[in-house]
Protein backbone atom coordinates (compact mmCIF):
# COMPACT_ATOMS: atom_id res chain seq x y z
CA UNK A 1 0.00 0.00 0.00
CA UNK A 2 2.80 2.38 1.04
CA UNK A 3 4.86 1.32 -1.94
CA UNK A 4 1.98 2.10 -4.24
CA UNK A 5 1.45 5.56 -2.79
CA UNK A 6 5.18 6.24 -3.02
CA UNK A 7 5.10 5.34 -6.68
CA UNK A 8 2.12 7.58 -7.19
CA UNK A 9 4.10 10.37 -5.59
CA UNK A 10 7.01 9.65 -7.87
CA UNK A 11 4.60 9.53 -10.73
CA UNK A 12 3.58 13.03 -9.74
CA UNK A 13 7.21 13.90 -10.42
CA UNK A 14 6.76 12.12 -13.73
CA UNK A 15 9.70 9.75 -13.44
CA UNK A 16 10.34 7.83 -16.60
CA UNK A 17 7.84 9.85 -18.61
CA UNK A 18 9.05 11.21 -21.93
CA UNK A 19 7.93 13.68 -24.52
CA UNK A 20 7.93 11.47 -27.58
CA UNK A 21 8.74 12.80 -31.02
CA UNK A 22 7.84 10.48 -33.85
CA UNK A 23 9.87 10.92 -37.02
CA UNK A 24 8.96 8.21 -39.50
CA UNK A 25 9.73 4.95 -37.77
CA UNK A 26 11.95 6.31 -35.06
CA UNK A 27 10.95 7.67 -31.68
CA UNK A 28 12.92 10.30 -29.82
CA UNK A 29 12.87 11.74 -26.32
CA UNK A 30 11.99 15.29 -27.26
CA UNK A 31 12.63 16.82 -23.83
CA UNK A 32 16.28 15.72 -23.95
CA UNK A 33 16.85 17.45 -27.27
CA UNK A 34 14.95 20.56 -26.29
CA UNK A 35 17.00 21.15 -23.15
CA UNK A 36 20.27 20.20 -24.83
CA UNK A 37 19.61 22.64 -27.68
CA UNK A 38 18.77 25.45 -25.28
CA UNK A 39 21.86 24.79 -23.13
CA UNK A 40 24.26 24.21 -26.02
CA UNK A 41 22.89 27.30 -27.74
CA UNK A 42 23.64 29.31 -24.61
CA UNK A 43 27.12 27.75 -24.43
CA UNK A 44 27.84 28.59 -28.07
CA UNK A 45 26.60 32.16 -27.67
CA UNK A 46 28.77 32.53 -24.57
CA UNK A 47 31.81 31.19 -26.40
CA UNK A 48 31.18 33.30 -29.52
CA UNK A 49 30.94 36.43 -27.37
CA UNK A 50 34.16 35.52 -25.55
CA UNK A 51 36.17 34.76 -28.69
CA UNK A 52 34.80 37.57 -30.83
CA UNK A 53 37.66 39.94 -30.20
CA UNK A 54 40.70 37.99 -29.08
CA UNK A 55 43.52 40.12 -27.73
CA UNK A 56 46.97 39.44 -26.45
CA UNK A 57 45.95 41.10 -23.19
CA UNK A 58 42.84 39.11 -22.29
CA UNK A 59 39.87 41.07 -20.98
CA UNK A 60 36.54 40.00 -19.50
CA UNK A 61 35.05 36.88 -21.04
CA UNK A 62 38.26 36.03 -22.88
CA UNK A 63 39.95 35.62 -19.50
CA UNK A 64 37.35 33.12 -18.39
CA UNK A 65 37.53 31.19 -21.66
CA UNK A 66 41.32 31.09 -21.50
CA UNK A 67 41.13 29.80 -17.94
CA UNK A 68 38.69 27.13 -19.12
CA UNK A 69 40.95 26.23 -22.04
CA UNK A 70 43.95 25.98 -19.75
CA UNK A 71 42.01 23.81 -17.32
CA UNK A 72 40.97 21.43 -20.09
CA UNK A 73 44.47 21.34 -21.52
CA UNK A 74 45.93 20.44 -18.12
CA UNK A 75 43.33 17.73 -17.72
CA UNK A 76 44.05 16.26 -21.17
CA UNK A 77 47.82 16.62 -20.83
CA UNK A 78 48.08 14.91 -17.44
CA UNK A 79 45.87 12.00 -18.45
CA UNK A 80 46.81 11.46 -22.11
CA UNK A 81 50.43 12.52 -22.11
CA UNK A 82 52.49 15.16 -23.86
CA UNK A 83 52.63 13.34 -27.20
CA UNK A 84 49.04 13.11 -28.39
CA UNK A 85 46.99 15.22 -26.00
CA UNK A 86 46.56 17.91 -28.65
CA UNK A 87 44.54 15.58 -30.88
CA UNK A 88 42.14 14.68 -28.11
CA UNK A 89 41.84 17.95 -26.27
CA UNK A 90 38.77 19.16 -28.24
CA UNK A 91 36.96 15.88 -27.59
CA UNK A 92 37.77 15.81 -23.87
CA UNK A 93 36.89 19.49 -23.58
CA UNK A 94 33.60 18.98 -25.41
CA UNK A 95 32.70 16.10 -23.11
CA UNK A 96 33.52 18.22 -20.08
CA UNK A 97 31.61 21.26 -21.32
CA UNK A 98 28.63 19.24 -22.52
CA UNK A 99 28.29 17.29 -19.27
CA UNK A 100 28.96 20.36 -17.14
CA UNK A 101 26.53 22.60 -18.99
CA UNK A 102 23.89 19.86 -19.03
CA UNK A 103 24.23 19.11 -15.32
CA UNK A 104 24.29 22.70 -14.16
CA UNK A 105 21.64 23.77 -16.63
CA UNK A 106 19.43 20.96 -15.39
CA UNK A 107 19.99 21.98 -11.78
CA UNK A 108 19.91 25.77 -12.07
CA UNK A 109 17.13 26.51 -14.53
CA UNK A 110 13.59 26.02 -13.16
CA UNK A 111 12.48 23.80 -16.02
CA UNK A 112 9.43 22.59 -14.09
CA UNK A 113 7.74 25.92 -14.76
CA UNK A 114 7.48 24.93 -18.44
CA UNK A 115 4.64 22.47 -18.84
CA UNK A 116 4.97 19.77 -21.47
CA UNK A 117 2.17 17.51 -22.66
CA UNK A 118 4.16 14.54 -21.39
CA UNK A 119 7.35 14.21 -19.32
CA UNK A 120 9.26 17.27 -18.14
CA UNK A 121 12.35 19.20 -19.08
CA UNK A 122 15.53 18.53 -17.11
CA UNK A 123 19.22 17.81 -17.39
CA UNK A 124 19.94 16.01 -20.67
CA UNK A 125 22.40 13.86 -18.73
CA UNK A 126 19.55 12.49 -16.59
CA UNK A 127 18.47 10.49 -19.63
CA UNK A 128 20.14 7.11 -20.11
CA UNK A 129 20.33 7.63 -23.90
CA UNK A 130 22.58 10.68 -23.52
CA UNK A 131 24.97 9.07 -21.08
CA UNK A 132 25.23 5.85 -23.10
CA UNK A 133 25.85 7.92 -26.22
CA UNK A 134 28.69 9.78 -24.46
CA UNK A 135 30.15 6.56 -23.02
CA UNK A 136 30.07 4.78 -26.39
CA UNK A 137 31.80 7.77 -27.99
CA UNK A 138 34.51 7.44 -25.35
CA UNK A 139 34.85 3.71 -26.11
CA UNK A 140 35.12 4.37 -29.84
CA UNK A 141 37.64 7.13 -29.16
CA UNK A 142 40.02 5.08 -27.12
CA UNK A 143 39.90 2.20 -29.60
CA UNK A 144 40.55 4.66 -32.42
CA UNK A 145 43.29 6.40 -30.44
CA UNK A 146 45.03 3.10 -29.66
CA UNK A 147 44.74 1.70 -33.19
CA UNK A 148 45.74 4.91 -34.96
CA UNK A 149 48.73 5.48 -32.69
CA UNK A 150 50.10 1.96 -32.35
CA UNK A 151 48.40 -0.05 -35.11
CA UNK A 152 47.91 -3.71 -34.30
CA UNK A 153 50.37 -3.36 -31.44
CA UNK A 154 47.46 -1.80 -29.57
CA UNK A 155 46.31 -5.32 -28.69
CA UNK A 156 49.53 -5.91 -26.78
CA UNK A 157 47.74 -3.90 -24.14
CA UNK A 158 45.39 -6.84 -23.57
CA UNK A 159 48.21 -9.22 -22.66
CA UNK A 160 50.19 -6.67 -20.70
CA UNK A 161 51.89 -7.41 -18.33
CA UNK A 162 50.84 -11.11 -18.61
CA UNK A 163 48.39 -12.99 -20.86
CA UNK A 164 46.42 -13.87 -17.72
CA UNK A 165 45.07 -10.33 -17.92
CA UNK A 166 43.36 -11.00 -21.29
CA UNK A 167 39.85 -11.88 -19.99
CA UNK A 168 39.91 -9.01 -17.52
CA UNK A 169 40.98 -6.50 -20.13
CA UNK A 170 38.26 -7.70 -22.50
CA UNK A 171 35.76 -7.43 -19.68
CA UNK A 172 37.02 -3.90 -19.02
CA UNK A 173 36.01 -2.84 -22.53
CA UNK A 174 32.44 -3.56 -21.49
CA UNK A 175 32.58 -2.28 -17.94
CA UNK A 176 34.17 1.03 -18.95
CA UNK A 177 31.20 2.39 -20.95
CA UNK A 178 28.77 0.75 -18.54
CA UNK A 179 30.27 2.41 -15.48
CA UNK A 180 30.77 5.74 -17.28
CA UNK A 181 27.17 5.94 -18.46
CA UNK A 182 25.51 4.65 -15.31
CA UNK A 183 27.61 6.75 -12.96
CA UNK A 184 26.63 9.96 -14.72
CA UNK A 185 23.01 8.93 -15.29
CA UNK A 186 22.56 7.71 -11.71
CA UNK A 187 24.11 10.73 -10.07
CA UNK A 188 22.20 13.31 -12.05
CA UNK A 189 18.90 11.46 -11.96
CA UNK A 190 19.26 10.82 -8.23
CA UNK A 191 20.00 14.49 -7.64
CA UNK A 192 16.93 15.53 -9.63
CA UNK A 193 14.79 12.99 -7.80
CA UNK A 194 16.01 13.99 -4.35
CA UNK A 195 15.42 17.65 -5.08
CA UNK A 196 12.07 16.82 -6.68
CA UNK A 197 10.89 14.70 -3.75
CA UNK A 198 12.05 17.28 -1.20
CA UNK A 199 10.35 20.11 -3.07
CA UNK A 200 7.24 17.93 -3.25
CA UNK A 201 7.28 17.17 0.48
CA UNK A 202 8.72 20.40 1.98
CA UNK A 203 8.54 23.21 -0.54
CA UNK A 204 10.45 25.71 1.62
CA UNK A 205 14.15 26.10 2.57
CA UNK A 206 14.90 22.40 3.14
CA UNK A 207 15.66 21.61 -0.52
CA UNK A 208 18.20 24.45 -0.77
CA UNK A 209 21.22 22.65 0.82
CA UNK A 210 20.41 19.61 -1.28
CA UNK A 211 20.34 21.84 -4.35
CA UNK A 212 23.81 23.16 -3.47
CA UNK A 213 25.00 19.59 -2.99
CA UNK A 214 23.47 18.87 -6.39
CA UNK A 215 25.49 21.67 -7.99
CA UNK A 216 28.64 20.28 -6.41
CA UNK A 217 27.85 16.74 -7.58
CA UNK A 218 27.08 18.03 -11.07
CA UNK A 219 30.45 19.75 -11.40
CA UNK A 220 32.30 16.75 -9.95
CA UNK A 221 30.52 14.37 -12.32
CA UNK A 222 31.52 16.47 -15.32
CA UNK A 223 35.13 16.44 -14.14
CA UNK A 224 35.03 12.69 -13.45
CA UNK A 225 33.57 11.91 -16.85
CA UNK A 226 36.12 14.00 -18.73
CA UNK A 227 39.03 12.75 -16.61
CA UNK A 228 38.08 9.10 -17.06
CA UNK A 229 37.58 9.55 -20.80
CA UNK A 230 41.03 11.14 -21.03
CA UNK A 231 42.50 8.40 -18.83
CA UNK A 232 41.09 5.65 -21.07
CA UNK A 233 42.50 7.34 -24.15
CA UNK A 234 45.82 7.82 -22.40
CA UNK A 235 45.86 4.16 -21.42
CA UNK A 236 45.24 3.16 -25.03
CA UNK A 237 48.04 5.30 -26.50
CA UNK A 238 50.56 4.60 -23.74
CA UNK A 239 53.71 2.77 -24.88
CA UNK A 240 54.55 -0.37 -22.91
CA UNK A 241 58.18 -1.24 -22.40
Amino acid at each position, binding site marked *: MFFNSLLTNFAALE*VGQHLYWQIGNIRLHGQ*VFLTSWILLGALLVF*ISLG*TKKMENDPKGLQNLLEFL*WDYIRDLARTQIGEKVYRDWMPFIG*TLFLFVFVSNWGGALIPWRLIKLPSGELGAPTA*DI*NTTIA*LALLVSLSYFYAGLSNKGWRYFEYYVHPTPIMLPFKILEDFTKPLSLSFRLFGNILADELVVGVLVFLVPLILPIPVMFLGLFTSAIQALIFATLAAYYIGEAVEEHH
Partner: protein
Amino acid sequence: MLAFNFFGATEGGLFDINATLPLMAIQVVALTYILNSLFFKPVGNVVEKREKFVSNNIIEAKNKLSEVKKLEADLLTQLQSARTEAQRIVSEAEGESEKLYKEALELANNEANASKEKARLEIESQTSAARDQLSKQADDLSELIVNRLILEK
Protein backbone atom coordinates in the same frame (compact mmCIF):
# COMPACT_ATOMS: atom_id res chain seq x y z
CA MET B 1 0.83 -0.19 -14.43
CA LEU B 2 2.78 2.64 -12.83
CA ALA B 3 5.37 0.27 -11.39
CA PHE B 4 5.68 -1.32 -14.79
CA ASN B 5 6.40 2.04 -16.36
CA PHE B 6 8.79 3.13 -13.63
CA PHE B 7 11.25 0.31 -14.17
CA GLY B 8 11.24 0.62 -17.90
CA ALA B 9 9.33 -1.18 -20.57
CA THR B 10 8.60 -0.89 -24.25
CA GLU B 11 6.85 2.42 -23.69
CA GLY B 12 8.46 5.02 -21.40
CA GLY B 13 10.50 4.24 -18.30
CA LEU B 14 13.89 5.23 -17.05
CA PHE B 15 15.79 2.79 -19.23
CA ASP B 16 13.91 3.48 -22.44
CA ILE B 17 16.65 3.34 -25.05
CA ASN B 18 15.72 4.46 -28.53
CA ALA B 19 16.96 6.59 -31.44
CA THR B 20 17.75 9.40 -28.98
CA LEU B 21 21.05 7.59 -28.35
CA PRO B 22 22.61 7.67 -31.84
CA LEU B 23 21.23 11.14 -32.53
CA MET B 24 22.70 12.44 -29.28
CA ALA B 25 26.04 10.83 -30.22
CA ILE B 26 25.95 12.57 -33.60
CA GLN B 27 25.04 15.82 -31.87
CA VAL B 28 28.02 15.49 -29.51
CA VAL B 29 30.40 14.73 -32.39
CA ALA B 30 29.07 17.77 -34.26
CA LEU B 31 29.49 19.82 -31.08
CA THR B 32 33.08 18.63 -30.86
CA TYR B 33 33.81 19.99 -34.35
CA ILE B 34 31.93 23.24 -33.69
CA LEU B 35 33.69 23.83 -30.35
CA ASN B 36 37.02 22.94 -31.93
CA SER B 37 36.68 25.66 -34.55
CA LEU B 38 34.92 28.17 -32.28
CA PHE B 39 36.71 27.65 -29.00
CA PHE B 40 39.69 25.30 -28.82
CA LYS B 41 41.55 26.47 -31.92
CA PRO B 42 41.23 30.27 -31.56
CA VAL B 43 41.78 30.32 -27.79
CA GLY B 44 44.61 27.81 -28.13
CA ASN B 45 46.27 29.97 -30.79
CA VAL B 46 46.12 33.07 -28.63
CA VAL B 47 47.28 31.30 -25.46
CA GLU B 48 50.07 29.41 -27.18
CA LYS B 49 51.24 32.52 -29.02
CA ARG B 50 51.43 34.34 -25.72
CA GLU B 51 53.20 31.42 -24.04
CA LYS B 52 55.70 31.32 -26.89
CA PHE B 53 56.20 35.09 -26.62
CA VAL B 54 56.79 34.84 -22.88
CA SER B 55 59.13 31.87 -23.11
CA ASN B 56 61.06 33.54 -25.96
CA ASN B 57 61.45 36.64 -23.85
CA ILE B 58 62.62 34.55 -20.92
CA ILE B 59 65.16 32.75 -23.11
CA GLU B 60 66.36 36.06 -24.54
CA ALA B 61 66.69 37.54 -21.07
CA LYS B 62 68.58 34.46 -19.94
CA ASN B 63 70.91 34.73 -22.92
CA LYS B 64 71.51 38.38 -22.19
CA LEU B 65 72.13 37.64 -18.56
CA SER B 66 74.64 34.93 -19.40
CA GLU B 67 76.31 37.32 -21.86
CA VAL B 68 76.53 39.96 -19.16
CA LYS B 69 78.00 37.40 -16.79
CA LYS B 70 80.52 36.37 -19.42
CA LEU B 71 81.49 39.98 -20.05
CA GLU B 72 81.77 40.56 -16.34
CA ALA B 73 84.05 37.54 -15.99
CA ASP B 74 86.04 38.78 -18.99
CA LEU B 75 86.45 42.19 -17.41
CA LEU B 76 87.47 40.60 -14.15
CA THR B 77 90.20 38.56 -15.82
CA GLN B 78 91.33 41.65 -17.70
CA LEU B 79 91.42 43.57 -14.48
CA GLN B 80 93.35 40.76 -12.84
CA SER B 81 95.92 40.61 -15.64
CA ALA B 82 96.27 44.41 -15.63
CA ARG B 83 96.86 44.29 -11.92
CA THR B 84 99.56 41.62 -12.19
CA GLU B 85 101.10 43.53 -15.10
CA ALA B 86 101.23 46.67 -12.99
CA GLN B 87 102.70 44.68 -10.12
CA ARG B 88 105.32 43.27 -12.44
CA ILE B 89 106.22 46.72 -13.85
CA VAL B 90 106.48 48.19 -10.39
CA SER B 91 108.68 45.40 -9.10
CA GLU B 92 110.77 45.60 -12.28
CA ALA B 93 111.25 49.34 -11.83
CA GLU B 94 112.10 48.81 -8.21
CA GLY B 95 114.71 46.21 -9.14
CA GLU B 96 116.17 48.52 -11.75
CA SER B 97 116.39 51.49 -9.42
CA GLU B 98 118.02 49.21 -6.82
CA LYS B 99 120.50 48.12 -9.43
CA LEU B 100 121.20 51.68 -10.49
CA TYR B 101 121.64 52.70 -6.89
CA LYS B 102 124.06 49.84 -6.29
CA GLU B 103 125.98 50.70 -9.41
CA ALA B 104 126.19 54.34 -8.45
CA LEU B 105 127.22 53.39 -4.97
CA GLU B 106 129.92 51.06 -6.23
CA LEU B 107 131.14 53.65 -8.65
CA ALA B 108 131.29 56.26 -5.95
CA ASN B 109 133.03 53.80 -3.63
CA ASN B 110 135.55 52.92 -6.28
CA GLU B 111 136.21 56.51 -6.99
CA ALA B 112 136.59 57.32 -3.38
CA ASN B 113 138.90 54.37 -2.94
CA ALA B 114 140.92 55.39 -5.94
CA SER B 115 141.32 58.99 -4.77
CA LYS B 116 142.14 57.69 -1.30
CA GLU B 117 144.78 55.41 -2.74
CA LYS B 118 146.17 58.21 -4.85
CA ALA B 119 146.33 60.51 -1.88
CA ARG B 120 148.04 57.79 0.14
CA LEU B 121 150.55 57.18 -2.61
CA GLU B 122 151.23 60.92 -2.84
CA ILE B 123 151.61 61.19 0.88
CA GLU B 124 153.95 58.21 0.79
CA SER B 125 156.04 59.63 -2.03
CA GLN B 126 156.19 63.03 -0.39
CA THR B 127 157.08 61.40 2.89
CA SER B 128 159.84 59.43 1.25
CA ALA B 129 160.99 62.52 -0.67
CA ALA B 130 161.04 64.52 2.53
CA ARG B 131 162.89 61.70 4.28
CA ASP B 132 165.35 61.53 1.44
CA GLN B 133 165.90 65.26 1.62
CA LEU B 134 166.21 65.09 5.35
CA SER B 135 168.70 62.27 5.20
CA LYS B 136 170.58 64.14 2.52
CA GLN B 137 170.66 67.28 4.61
CA ALA B 138 171.76 65.17 7.52
CA ASP B 139 174.49 63.76 5.36
CA ASP B 140 175.46 67.26 4.22
CA LEU B 141 175.43 68.46 7.75
CA SER B 142 177.43 65.54 9.00
CA GLU B 143 179.89 66.07 6.19
CA LEU B 144 180.12 69.73 7.07
CA ILE B 145 180.71 68.88 10.66
CA VAL B 146 183.32 66.36 9.71
CA ASN B 147 185.02 68.79 7.36
CA ARG B 148 185.10 71.52 9.99
CA LEU B 149 186.48 69.17 12.54
CA ILE B 150 189.16 68.05 10.19
CA LEU B 151 190.01 71.67 9.20
CA GLU B 152 190.38 72.73 12.81
CA LYS B 153 192.93 70.13 13.46
